Every structure is written in structure tokens, then in C-alpha cells.
């Protein structure tokens, strides 16, 4: 076989492989475009509409079948009214701020709980590690709703925690823990802890133990070596874990609903109520768009991390 046609055959084979790999991606690609990306555009469009009593409960309803001219007339009725309303009503502004605050506090606490656990896992004998990882993942496979609900029985006024504390004589009368922001934070820390532990573990497990020894060999006392090497080198894991907790926690609905109180303000719950109780679809769409805008930077950061981690 002449060498030129040989080379061609090889190029052809290589080329076909590239083509194939792109081709198999077509189906999920289209699926995600239709069911993930386009819905956001619809949310954006409806957030510019006005609430209307009927089905669907907003107007205008765009329909290209009515002709381009009629559609254009309708497009012109879209307005930023919902957004100005969100900005002017302190309830929404506070809900956003309070969500960010609760999520931030919970993220820091999750990190403080998760780091020692991940560190201990990474330093555990090699044979134990698969079991320890399985033990961390297991709760994550258990229903989120049930895990949050488990805390209702523990935290409520006549619940287990108060009973134990009363028995020990630590408190004179039951504390009100359930239906407070504190309970919401406990719930977030508990429910999202595995998400924090796993990336931290991945970062810690990769570290060469000799690095820590090198630092102490060069004169760093143990606490300083821990900070300079162990903590410093797990920064990617810390960032990833924190984003995995923080982003969903900001929009969390189940936890504030079950563990929070009447004065717990979280935007996920606000959105839910606007939608299911007030049936104001355009306003809840606007709430969602603003939430997304707030989260766009952390989400992009997370995607970067994930892409680097996998490739």
C-alpha cells in the first residue's frame, strides 16, 4: 500500500472518530438546549409580562401564527414593571439579602465542620478510605426531604434536643430552636455537608505527605506547616465545596420551609409563595431572573472548577 493513501486512511479514521464523538453529543446537546436553556429565555420573557387572571395567567401570550406585525405589537407591551416593583418593595430586597447572609453563614460553618472530617479521611489508612467515602456519600443518597424532616423531631420545643438538655440540667426550660434562622442554618449545614467534604477530601488526598514534612524540616512549627501547606493547597477544594453549598443554599426552599419560622426570609420560599399562593407568574419569574443574575458569578466559577477537575 503506498504511504500516501495509508496516511489518508489514518486521517480518515481519526476524522471519523472526532465526528462520531461530536455526533453522539448531539442528543444531550439538543435536550439541554430545549429543556435547560430555552426555558430561561421564557422565564426572562414572562418576567417582562404582566399578571393576568386567566390561563395562562400572564399577558401578552406571544404566538407567531398571528403574524409578525401583531406579535411585534405585543412585544412592545413588555415592561420592566416587575423589576421596579422588586426593587421598590423592601420585602424582596430583604429576602435576597437575608438568603445571601444565611447561605454565607451556613457555608462557612459547613466548611468548618467539613474540613476536619475530610482531613481525617485523607489521613486515614488507605484501606479504610473507600468505606469512609461511602459513609459520607450514603446520606446524600438518602432523601433530602427526609433528612431535613429528621431535624424537626430533634429541634422542636418538645423535641429530643431540648429533652436531653433538660435532663442534663443544662437549661431550665425548653429553648425555641425550631422555626428560627439558626435551625435553617443547622439544616443547611447538615444537608449539604457531604457536598463540602467530597471536594475537600479530593484536594487533601492528592497532597504529598512529604510536603508537610518538608515545611517542618525547613523550620515551620506544626500549626504553621498545616496552614502553609495543608490549608493553602486545599484552596481549590475549599472553593469548590463552598460553591457547591452556597449556590443551592441561596435558593433553598425545603429547609426554610420546614425548619424556618415566620420571620425567616429566604428568596426560594418567596418565589414559591409568589407562584403557588399568589399565582403571580410574571413576578416569580422576575424573582428567578434576579436570583440567577446574583448567582451568575459563583455558578461560572463553579463551572470552571468542574471543567478543570474532570479534564
Amino acid at each position, binding site marked *: 500500500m503506498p504511504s500516501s493513501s495509508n496516511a489518508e486512511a489514518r486521517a480518515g479514521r481519526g476524522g471519523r472518530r472526532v465526528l462520531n464523538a461530536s455526533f453522539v453529543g448531539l442528543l444531550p446537546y439538543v435536550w439541554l438546549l430545549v429543556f435547560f436553556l430555552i426555558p430561561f429565555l421564557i422565564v426572562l420573557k414572562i418576567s417582562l409580562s404582566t399578571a393576568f387572571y386567566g390561563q395562562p395567567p400572564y399577558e401578552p401570550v406571544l404566538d407567531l401564527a398571528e403574524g409578525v406585525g401583531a406579535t411585534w405589537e405585543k412585544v412592545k407591551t413588555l415592561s420592566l414593571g416587575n423589576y421596579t416593583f422588586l426593587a421598590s418593595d423592601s420585602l424582596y430586597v430583604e429576602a435576597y439579602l437575608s438568603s445571601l447572609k444565611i447561605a454565607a453563614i451556613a457555608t462557612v460553618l459547613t466548611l468548618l465542620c467539613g474540613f476536619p472530617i475530610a482531613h481525617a479521611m485523607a489521613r486515614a489508612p488507605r484501606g479504610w478510605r473507600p468505606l469512609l467515602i461511602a459513609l459520607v456519600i450514603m446520606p446524600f443518597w438518602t432523601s433530602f426531604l427526609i433528612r431535613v424532616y429528621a431535624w424537626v423531631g430533634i429541634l422542636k420545643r418538645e423535641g429530643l434536643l431540648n429533652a436531653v438538655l433538660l435532663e442534663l440540667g443544662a437549661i431550665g426550660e425548653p429553648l425555641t430552636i425550631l422555626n428560627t434562622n439558626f435551625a435553617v442554618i443547622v439544616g443547611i449545614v447538615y444537608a449539604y455537608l457531604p457536598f463540602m467534604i467530597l471536594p475537600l477530601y479530593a484536594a487533601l488526598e492528592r497532597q504529598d505527605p*512529604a510536603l508537610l*514534612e*518538608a515545611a*517542618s*524540616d*525547613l523550620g515551620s512549627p506544626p500549626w504553621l506547616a498545616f496552614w502553609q*501547606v495543608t490549608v493553602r493547597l486545599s484552596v481549590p477544594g475549599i472553593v469548590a465545596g463552598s460553591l457547591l453549598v452556597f449556590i443551592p443554599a441561596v435558593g433553598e426552599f425545603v429547609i426554610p420551609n420546614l425548619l424556618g419560622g415566620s420571620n425567616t426570609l429566604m428568596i426560594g420560599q418567596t418565589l414559591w409563595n409568589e407562584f403557588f399562593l399568589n399565582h403571580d407568574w410574571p413576578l416569580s419569574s422576575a424573582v428567578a431572573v434576579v436570583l440567577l443574575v446574583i448567582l451568575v458569578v459563583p455558578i461560572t466559577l463553579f463551572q470552571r472548577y468542574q471543567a478543570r477537575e474532570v479534564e
Partner: protein
Amino acid sequence: MSALASPAMTGAPLGDSAAEPIAKRAAEPLIRFDHVRKTFGGVVAVADLSLDIEEGEFFALLGPSGCGKTTLMRMLAGFETPTSGDIRLAGKSLAGVPAHKRPTNMMFQSYALFPHLSVWDNIAFGLRREGLNAAAIRARVDDMLSLVQLTAQARRKPHQLSGGQRQRVALARSLAKEPRVLLLDEPLAALDKKLRGETQFELTAIQRRLGITFVIVTHDQDEAMVLADRIAVMREGGIEQVGTPAEIYEAPVSRAVASFIGEINLIEGTVAHADARETALDAPALGTRVVASPAGAARAGEAGCLAIRPEKVAMRRVNGHSDGPNTLTGTVSDAAFMGEDTLYRVRLETGHLIKTRRSNTRDGGTIRLGDRVVLNWDPADAVFLER
């Protein structure tokens, strides 16, 4: 290199040793392992080991993996604590002195370069811990960079360097604090063969220049021979033999040392007679009696072993009758060409194989596979081993 000798840098952590009586310092070597024992959950890593290392030596701990050499070094660095016994440095016990306060520095097998720091910052790491001012640190780091010829790479991160460059950064980092003792854990293991050869000479040159005591851990006998002034051959947590490379090679004390270092013929047998001049051994595998001198402390009837290096075994083609002590005849069974010389294996009538090395110079005449040959050696070149 002026900064290397600057008084600010020398022996800062244990600098007060100058205040000690001079007699004691002279009496005691720089490093003394005194009946050191280390077990890991019942497994003995180092068993009742005593060893002295002198100031300014290039000392090698040589042995197969699992012989306890790395554990010994890690105890000296402070990463492991002896189960019993004591390690003294310049006459002072190191017990209770944590790793970060010891005047030893280590070059790790994996190099353990901090991946988030540049070459410059890696080298400066230890100096910063000493609280030196910025100018002193800068001068010292620049000196170290030029010592290992990496000035141009100062701003690079470790992952942007080649294997050889990383190795030099690790060396510079561990030398930067001018330690009393530099510990090198398999420093050349990750390098390819050619680079290893070049780096060996660089290491000895640097050691000579700085006069720092180097202790190297290695499983590579050639490396230990080339680098070290003295070698301790370790086996199963204990020391088999301590000596200069020549002593260890020429006069091994046990079968383990003899067979670990280089090629050797070990001939088992029973002592026929032993006197002040020689030890004669009846070797059933050879079907004859062989002789080694000088003699050991062996007595007739004891089991023992005669060791002879292949290059000390002379070989010539059979022409006529040959006789005398240590003379054997056989057939050339195989030959391994090794460049400057060839390693032959000769099969005796008993079936036993004897290795002999012959240099590939022109004057030897050719020897082919299947040739009948006569082997013999000078009794003075053979060693009698009891262990």
C-alpha cells in the same frame, strides 16, 4: 559563594554548642546513633542499631527496600521517634527536639517542592522561618540559585521545570539554611541514567565545596560507591558492615554484603584446614579444594563460603596440562557483552557456574561459546565468609 561562609548563617540553631567543652566535642562524632530501636505496631524497622557519622563525611545508608535505612534517616530528621535508644548530634541528644527545630535539612525522594510557590519562594521558605531580613534572604536565595544554576528559572513554578531542574531546586532548598547535616532520601532515583551520572559528580562537588555532612539513603550500590566516603550496608533493621567503598567491595564480611554489592561468585563448602596463612575449603559444587588467604578465624570442619569477584578470576583456553591451587576447568556457557568488558559464565564438570569478567582489550585473544577453558585465581583475592 561568600554568603555560604557568612557567620550569620553558620550553625544558628545549635550555635551554642561552641560553649561546650572542647574535649567532649572531639570525643564524640557529629552524629551518634546509640542502640536505636524502632518498631511500627510490632514490626521491627530498626533493631538496636549503633552508628557514628563524622563531621564533613559523605555517608551512605545502603540496603534493599524495607531494610530500615529510610526509617533511620527519618528519625534523624525528626519525623519518627525512636522506640528506644538515643540519637545525638554534636554531643546533644535530639530526643524531644521537633523536626522544625533540628539543624538538619532533608531532600525528599519526591522532592516535596511546594507546588504553589515559585522556585525562588521554595528556596526562601526555610530562610523566612529564621526571621532573616529581606536583603539577607535575597542574597542567600540568589547564591543558592547560582550554585545549582537555576537563576534563569527563579520565577517558574515546580510544574514548569524538568525532572533534573526540580531535583536541583530541592537540593538548593535544603541547603539554603546551611544545615549541620543534609539528608538525601534516594535523591537520584527519579532521574534517568545519564542525568544520574552527571548529577552524582555535581553532588560530590557541592559537598566538598560546602563541607556539610551529607547522609544519603539509597538502594543503588553503584550510587553509594560513587558518592560516599563511607557506606553502611543495612539489612533487616541492622547494620551488616560499615566501611569505605573499597573495604566493602574488596572485603565484605558476609554473604549478604558480598552479594548485594556487585557480581560475585559464592562457593559453599566445609573448612578442610585453616592456619595463619590461608583457609582451605572443600567445595562439593566444584569437586575440588579451594583456598583463600588471608585467613579468617575459621576452624576445620566448619561450614563456610569462599567469595571471589569475577574480575579476579583469570580465564584462558586449555592448552596442555594445568595445575596449582584454585584451578578449575570448564566450558564457556554464555557471555554478556557490557562495553568495556564481557561477563562470561563457565560451566564446570560438576555443572556449577563460575562468573568471570574479561576486559575487551585486544591482547586477550578470543574466547567463544563452547570453548574449553581453565580458570584460576590468586588466593589473596578470595575472601572467606563465615556468615
